């Protein structure tokens, strides 16, 4: 039982890493980034390639840095020029980016599945409540908790964090009050994309790498973002942990319906509260 709860937390943690990136980008740019799953996939492949030459840890760090740079580029080259357009237009453009990135990954790494192994330090199992549990999943839980704690502290106690929180309530008023939201957006989209890269590498030993690996987890993290409330950081954490448990216990007790449960939850929550658990905006 405890093992199953931990499995759910590990998956929920991964979802959180992706969903929080979506929330960050939504807060500043008011768009939902359909390319986020493809960025997750790209980060995974970058980590895979670096790890193949050097080691897992360099792959992790390299992917984080590379994806942060790509995120900054994405904001400066795509999202900023589009900020005056209808937000749905920008969403469609990110859908186009998704298609381009998938084709790019197919061209570079091929269509066949690749697998990436966990580093020696984290392979093997430990005994928890008398049952074996993979060390690597504990590592996944640790990483997501550290990111959650770090991000919360940053948002809560730093000046930039204050600006980010203000923007995710109302970007226009924040800009009027003298915050340079364009510069802020560079940081935030870079950070969000970097987190997508980080979670890509962290998830890589748990799943097979393929150009479409990001699609399913993207949709689940959409559900997390919507259920948690668009633009809400704490809502995203709560929803990610909830969906992680539903995903895991659903697979055990309701295998035929497990993949549908998150969708049903989302439909139910949106009908009950169109803005999600903690959200104020639509």
């Amino acid at each position, binding site marked *: 039982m405890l093992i199953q709860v931990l499995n759910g937390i590990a998956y929920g943690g991964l979802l959180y890493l992706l969903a929080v990136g979506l929330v960050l980008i939504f807060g500043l740019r008011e768009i939902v980034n359909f390319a986020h799953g493809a960025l997750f996939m790209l980060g995974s492949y970058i980590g895979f390639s670096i790890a193949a030459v050097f080691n897992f840890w360099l792959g992790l760090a390299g992917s984080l840095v590379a994806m942060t740079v790509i995120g900054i580029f994405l904001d400066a080259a795509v999202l900023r020029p*589009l900020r005056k357009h209808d937000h749905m*237009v920008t*969403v469609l*453009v990110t859908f*186009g980016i998704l298609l381009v990135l998938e084709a790019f990954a197919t061209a570079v790494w091929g269509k066949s599945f690749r697998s990436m192994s966990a580093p020696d330090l984290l392979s093997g199992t430990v005994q928890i409540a008398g049952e074996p549990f993979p060390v690597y999943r504990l590592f996944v839980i640790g990483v997501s908790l550290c990111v959650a704690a770090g991000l919360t502290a940053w948002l809560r106690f730093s000046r930039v964090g204050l600006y980010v929180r203000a923007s995710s309530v109302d970007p226009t008023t924040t800009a009027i009050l003298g915050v340079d939201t364009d510069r802020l957006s560079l940081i935030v989209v870079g950070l969000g994309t970097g987190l997508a890269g980080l979670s890509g590498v962290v998830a890589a030993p748990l799943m097979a790498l393929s150009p479409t690996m990001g699609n399913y987890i993207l949709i689940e993290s959409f559900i997390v973002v919507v259920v948690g409330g668009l633009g809400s950081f704490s809502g995203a954490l709560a929803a990610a942990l909830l969906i992680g448990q539903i995903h895991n216990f659903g697979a055990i007790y309701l295998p035929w319906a497990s993949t549908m449960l998150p*969708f049903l939850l989302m439909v139910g929550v949106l009908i009950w509260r169109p803005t999600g658990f903690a959200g104020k905006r639509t």
Partner: protein
Amino acid sequence: MSIGESQLGGVGVRMAQQRYSWIFGLAALALVLGIAAPHLIASLLWMSLLTQAVVDMMLATSVGILVRQNGRISFGQAAFFGLGAYTFGVIAAREIASPELALLAGLVLPTVVAFLLGLVIARIPGVAHAMLTLAVGQALYEVAFKWRALANGDDGMSVRMPDTIFGIDSDVFQSPATMLVICWSLLVLMLLALSLMARSPFGQLTEVIRENDERARFIGYGTTLPRAIIYGVSAFIAATAGILQTLYDGYISPQMLHWSASGMAMIMAIVGGPRILWGPALGAFVLFFFKDIAGDATEYWPALVGGTLIAVTLFLPEGFAGLIIRLTSRAVRRIKGERP
């Protein structure tokens, strides 16, 4: 308005008749062209491609009508396409009911589901709406994917056609030369019906609601029901396209419901220009052949489609149809000797 109607009623009616006759004339021309097409096109391959293109055009039109009359972006339109195809395919293949009833059920079920769903989700705007439709679509996809007893899950199921449907030999639906005429005629009739609907008081009301839901309510209109009706109309068109594809291919698979299919339909509608009635169909036509040609040349065609989408949304916000209208009106003005 009421004064104008009483004083100038005769003129108004005559003008309206002129305007409508223009539309009917265009539709008749399109129908004749479609009936003549099999005699003009020699290649069977081209006719087959055109038939598939017309099915895509229908699906894109169903996405477009949701944007045009409701101002809503749907990322789950393939759900109704697939629901129509599955309802018809499963009932017909398992001989639960006569193929005629299966066809009707395939049209009615998606329409009713969309209407009921519309009652609930019509009030959710923007990005949340896009994601909700995505979730509904993926939930249906998961059902088709997981439920092997229904239609072989992921493998899909071939649907053996009954000998006749509505007294028509089912070979008619499987041969490109006749199917092209059927699909094209249905598409033309749908566009005609939609353009008449858009000009009707109901169509005007949906546009008012699209522009400002709150003010429409202030002046005393209920806004949920008209929106839900548009969802139903849109799903009806998508389901028709799904049934036509099933009749033609004799095959259903969960890919018909997948969100990438919804996304592609959305791209086709946006690239064509959803503000203009025939824009989405034009976008589907262009992208279908673009995909076909690019697919021959490179396996990375999604990148080209994605690139086109980015370029069109940035540089042609009104889509291909908007570009054509702008160019023709400029040409007309030049012919008339006015300054552009």
